[in-house]
């Protein structure tokens, strides 16, 4: 990092003046927390008692044998409380909120996992909570909306723009510019203005720290490759940080290929050729935008990957060649999900399944004495409606039909 908040050419803090003091205060609180060893101790303690950290590293024997190459290990962030890696960041920021003395939290959410984690944290810490969620995502991630509301959060469907994650981020900022005195914005990913990318990466680094120890204990040496899906990039940054200095470990980020990179309907910022440098949502990175700088509509079956920008830290690592970027299509994702359920009895989220796709493509290239790790960023239960629909499952459809009839007479 050269200048504060910059990673090579990327990052920064492009914020409206009204938030200048708020960011000053947030930077100060974050720097103090980082410099205070008791803070990280408190964080680890919380994550091991309120959640299930360390999460296991599972050796997927059946999948490994199926592909007949390297041993496949799965880092089980699905077993984290609320079912995804999102809780790592949220509980960390929750501790910061307590230190700053704020009474309310707001957050954006795409797949709803970050929203659920934030609502959970707010319930536990006694904070008021508002979640902004694109209308399209509210429709496709209904179970998470239900749980957020049950935990006491207000879920605001965002109807502007593409009605997805980027629009939810804009709305959260619009709330924050009036409410900053008592409200903290719990940014859910390693994007946005400094210090968010650094802060979220710091909390998520717990994944990589654990995974490195676990693979050495379980497999006896470092993996050849580590795979993670990349939306904003927080789970990827989390696991990659554990292996950043291990030059022989190849780091692979997998973006949403949607209907294919040539279709224009995807969310591949770094794996494709459709993005260009830009400044939006408070930071500088590679965005999917047109020649005028207007953001384009993105597409992915996975709401959590359906985003125009990407972490400035990852863009820097991409530019420097430290992280390789690939993409997985919606179709490939369903096939990988199906295989993982059948072979291992594990249900990865649609987002996480992108990482599985790429790992499956490459597992056969590795020798049997090599290992690869897939970061399973979350569980697929939340996607039951989307997955059942994609499988065109007859008994599920029958169930929904019956429920519909039952409610119709209410």
């Amino acid at each position, binding site marked *: 990092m050269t200048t504060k908040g910059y990673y090579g050419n990327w990052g920064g803090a*492009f914020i*409206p*003046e009204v938030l200048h*003091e708020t960011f000053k205060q947030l930077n100060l609180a974050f720097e103090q927390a980082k410099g205070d060893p008791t803070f990280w101790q408190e964080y680890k303690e919380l994550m091991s008692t309120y959640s299930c950290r360390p999460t296991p590293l599972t050796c997927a024997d059946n999948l490994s044998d199926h592909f007949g190459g390297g041993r496949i290990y799965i880092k089980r962030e699905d077993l984290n409380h609320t079912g995804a890696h999102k809780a790592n960041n949220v509980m960390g920021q929750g501790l910061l909120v307590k230190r700053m003395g704020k009474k309310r939290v707001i957050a954006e959410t795409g797949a709803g996992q970050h929203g659920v984690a934030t609502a959970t944290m707010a319930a536990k810490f006694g904070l008021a909570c508002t979640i902004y969620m694109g209308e399209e995502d509210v429709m496709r991630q209904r179970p998470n909306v239900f749980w957020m509301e049950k935990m006491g959060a207000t879920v605001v469907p965002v109807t502007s723009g593409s009605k997805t994650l980027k629009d939810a981020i804009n709305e959260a900022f619009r709330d924050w510019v009036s409410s*900053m005195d008592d409200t903290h914005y719990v940014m859910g990913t390693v994007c946005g203005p400094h210090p968010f990318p650094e802060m979220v990466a710091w909390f998520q680094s717990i994944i990589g720290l654990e995974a490195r120890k676990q693979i050495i204990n379980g497999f006896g040496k470092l993996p050849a490759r580590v795979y993670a899906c990349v939306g904003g990039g927080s789970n990827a940054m989390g696991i990659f940080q554990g292996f950043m200095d291990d030059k022989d470990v190849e780091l692979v980020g997998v973006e949403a290929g949607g209907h294919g990179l040539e279709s224009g309907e995807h969310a591949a910022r770094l794996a494709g050729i459709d993005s260009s440098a830009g400044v939006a949502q408070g930071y500088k990175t590679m965005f999917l935008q047109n020649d*005028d*700088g207007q953001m384009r509509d993105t597409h992915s079956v996975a709401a959590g990957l359906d985003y125009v920008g990407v972490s400035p830290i990852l863009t820097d690592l991409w530019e420097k060649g430290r992280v390789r970027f690939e993409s997985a299509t919606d179709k490939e994702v369903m096939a990988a999900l199906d295989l993982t359920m059948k072979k291992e009895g594990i249900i990865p989220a649609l987002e996480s399944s992108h990482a599985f796709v790429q790992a499956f493509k490459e597992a056969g290239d590795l020798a049997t004495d090599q290992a690869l790790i897939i970061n399973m960023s979350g569980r697929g239960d939340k996607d039951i409606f989307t997955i059942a629909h994609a499988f065109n499952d007859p008994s599920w459809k029958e169930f929904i039909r019956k429920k519909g009839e039952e409610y119709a007479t209410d």
Partner: protein
Amino acid sequence: MQLTDYIRKRREKKNILLMTHLVLGYPSFEVNRQVIRQMVENGVDLIELQIPFSEPMADGPMILKANQESIEAGTTVKDCLEFAAEVTAAYDIPFLFMTYYNILFKYGVEDFFKKAVAIGIKGFIVPDLPPEEGAGFLQLAGKYEIAPILIYAPTSTDERMRELAGHARGFIYCVARRGVTGKQTDFDKDFNLYMSRCRQATNLPLAVGFGISNKEDVDFLTGQADIAVIGTRTIRLIDEHGAAAVGPFIAGLK
């Protein structure tokens, strides 16, 4: 600098100046044209032309909608520049560009300045570009003599205001309250204190915007500010009553 001189000279004759705002291409360039004519004919002193951006983070629902509908209707940056050239040639008041940084960044910041000079634009308002990120922008503003309008907010400390004053030219845009554009502002004692803090931090003229919607608001600002900024109110007016309503509305503010 020429923009500041213009404001001071104009203020010798008027107690307060009016700056209006419109989103280019919303609802259409033709309506923009009619609206600007009425604004100028009814004594508006400066006009802010907002080049639409898909992610207008600092704007409230009304201007957000205007940005998005303009883009959806096909408005390009090139269209906006051509339209701006037309109105700066037609009217003898200063026009400013308001937009978000990505529009300049993608165009090429220096090319954008060159183009703006050629068109005769007098200042830029870029709400998501604080001076910490805008060193190059500020340098180019000096080189091309286009006023970089910086923003004060009620949350700005005295120290911060002085720091911003060191980079600003033309005038300072004082945001009347927290939040985004388009909501009513309470002009109370806290506001008077805020304005006196703004006044102490800079010798530049002060414009006040956000939530200014009627004659009472403009009267209240007279004596405290040099320029009252009318934004969302005229966009709403045009949506509800058409472009012809703008002239009488502006005339009624004085």
